[in-house]
Structures are given as C-alpha cells and as structure tokens.
C-alpha cells in the first residue's frame, strides 16, 4: 500500500508525465512535486510521483523491488 516504485520521466505534460518503469510506461501525476523534467527519476505511489530521487538510488530501489517480485 505504502510502497513507492522508482521510474524515469520520459515525457512531461503537466500535471502528467509518462514514466518508464524498466520498460513499462505509465502516465502518472507529477503535481505533488516541483519542477519535474525529462530524465528525472521519481518515486511513484498509486499513480502519483511523491519524491525525486537520484539515478543511483532509483536503481538500488529498483533492484531490490525486482528481488521481491521475482525471487519469492
């Protein structure tokens, strides 16, 4: 429920953005954040970007979530 998944912003159309989650793209709302740009990494929770994160940090979280999803 409170899990947030990191993804990369590929296209901004305020208040929305298309975010790439390792290949899967989804439209999310970005108006809870200031100044979201293409190429930014964001944490997304229930279709809303709630925080910007650094690329390395996004990758770390991604790797961990992958383990959760595929190595159960």
């Amino acid at each position, binding site marked *: *429920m*409170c899990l*947030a998944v990191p993804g990369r912003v590929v296209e901004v159309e305020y208040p929305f953005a298309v975010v790439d989650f390792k290949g899967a793209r989804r439209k999310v*709302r970005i108006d*809870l954040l200031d100044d979201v740009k293409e190429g930014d990494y964001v944490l997304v929770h*229930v*279709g809303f970007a*709630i925080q910007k*994160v650094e690329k390395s940090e996004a990758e770390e979280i991604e790797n961990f979530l992958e383990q959760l999803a595929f190595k159960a």
Partner: protein
Amino acid sequence: MSESRGRRVEKGTGDVKAGDVSDVKEWGKKIARMIREEVEGEDEIRIMHLCGTHEDTITRYGIRSLLPENVKLLSGPGCPVCITPDSDLQMVFHLLENRDVILTTFGDMARVPYMGKTLFSFRGERDVRIVYSIFDALEIAKKEGKDVVHFGIGFETTMPSTALAVLDDVENFYVFSSHRYFIPAMDYLLSLGEARIDAFINPGHVSTIVGVKAYEEITEKYRVPQVIAGFEPNDVLLAVLMLVKAVKKLRAGEETELLMNEYTRAVTYEGNVRAQKVMDEVFGRDDWEWRGLGLVPSSGAPISEKYSEHDAFKVFEDVFEDFTPEEDPRKRACRCGEVLRGLVTPRDCPLFMKSCTPRDPVGPCMVSFEGTCSIWAKYGEYSF
C-alpha cells in the same frame, strides 16, 4: 552498490567505515554481529516496525533469526487495509446496497470479508471496480457521467493523491474517506504502554511525505528512539543497530540522538511540503476507530467542510441515517487486532493457517499483502 551501503552505514553509526566490506551479504552479517555485540547482557529490547513492507523484508530474509534473543522485532499497525475497521466496510456495503453508484477501490480492500461478503462479491449486482490509482476513478467519473464513489484508504503516503483528486472538482466524483493519519497511532500505542515498545522503525514512504520533522512530537513526548528506514534487509538491520545503541544509552542515562533517518535516499527533514499542503487543504482531523486499537484521537481524515460536495458521507447522508454497526461473528476468534498492536504473532492465533489462509482469509491481516499474517503465510513462517 557496496559503496552506497558503506556510505549509509557510516552515516548511521559513525563506527563502520565505507568500503571495508564489499558484499551486501557480508554487510548484513557484519551489522548483525555488531548488534549481537552491542546487546550482550542487555535487558530485552523491543523494537516495533510500522510498515507491511518492513515486515515483508524482515520475514523474507529471516532477519529475526539473525538477531539475538534479547532483541525482539514486533510488527505494528502498518497495514492500511488491516487497520480499517469493519464498520467502514459495512458502511460502504450499505451504500452499495442502497445506491446505484460505481464504487472504486484498491485491490486488497475488495477482498476483505465482512459477514461472509466482500466488495468483490458485489460484482454482478453492483458496479465495483478495482483501480490502481484514484486518478483512474476520476477518469471513470468524467467518461461515464454516473456517480463514482472512491473508497479511499491509506496513510499519509496515499492521502495527497486523494486530496488532488478532490481538488480536481469533478462534479460526479465522491470520496468515502477511510484515510487515517499515522503518527497519532504511534502516540496512542505508546500511551497504552501494553506492547512495551523501546524503539520504532518508522515507515519509509509515509516519511517521504511527512518528513523527519513530523516525528519530533513523539520524540518530545515519549523520548523513544526512532529510525526512518528503507526496505532492504541491510536498511532494517542498520536501523536495528542504530536503535539498540540509542536504547542502551538511554537506559544508561547518557545523551543520545533519538530521531534518526537511515532512508536519506528518499526522505528529507521537511518531507514533501506541497503534498502536506494539499492534504491540509482537503482533510480535517477527527477521532476515528482503528481495528485493534479502538478510538485513536485525531487520527481520522474526513473530507473538510469546504469540499463537502465531494464527501460521500455528506452527499449520501440519508443512506447512512439508519446505519447501525454490527460485529461480524466470524471474526470473534480472529486476533488480527492484537497482531496490529504487537501483542501476539500470527502463530498465536487459533485460526492461522487452519480456518484462515491466504486463499480463504478470515481477517484482513491475512488478506492484505501488507498484513503480517499474509506475509508469514507466504514465507512459511508457520512450520514449527
């Protein structure tokens, strides 16, 4: 990867240096060893985490088995579906039975049984739809023109999304708010004193929104150590290490830092201020019931008066006039409430993996993927 692990360890404890262990597993073992050394001869230290995703990490990686006997990891009320009381669900059922609306909610909530029925079981006679985001519910309202009621659950992580949806001011869109503020529940649990909580591992993504600052009131009132932690096994182990150090110092009457942030990659001191503002704009505060905890002061998040035209409680007021909450007799033996208070483990429940299983759950702790019972069932934490 090891470099950033090292960086965080250094930040957390001050005495583990970056780069001296290269492998993540080795890091975990090293932190576990440090915890064991730290608590040798110490009285029991009871640490409560407050998030289903933390419970998942702890159970999946067997973190409890890495810890010494005198460090206990308890799971708390960190699962929004689990803490939503039956009376809320009963009200939504009542609304569906009396009004022809489209009801939207998140997947887990639709599987919670009440009196042998679930929101899923209404499908066929009523229009119940599972959405990934409240935004999908808004789209349904815009496209179909029929009244849409979104059954909104969740803590501060989810509340800003509901607030934005309300602010979009779509005429035929209403929210049945079952949202609850998280920190009043921590306060309440500490005031009860029954679980003897020495320290908290605070939830990572709630904190993304509320920021470190939101926990200062708990620090001031109870002087209980807290660490905001990420969700990897080493995040949790590191949080435990930071907490046992702090608890030891407190017990010895020494100065110690009480409020710490291990999840610096996503949580700041201020949190997401814009999200806090929209939440404050749209929600009020009230004393609301939680499953397992009873009435928690200032924990409820009703839609405020200003936006009452989108508040399902107000708009469908007449439906609720003859509403009386009723206890579900099927749940009498279910100990979900005590699991949420950290008083018992799923194994202490007579129904666990007998009449209550992930396939046929009795209580919400077995329904939600964030529920402790469901997590213990998933990873086989019941073969004893």
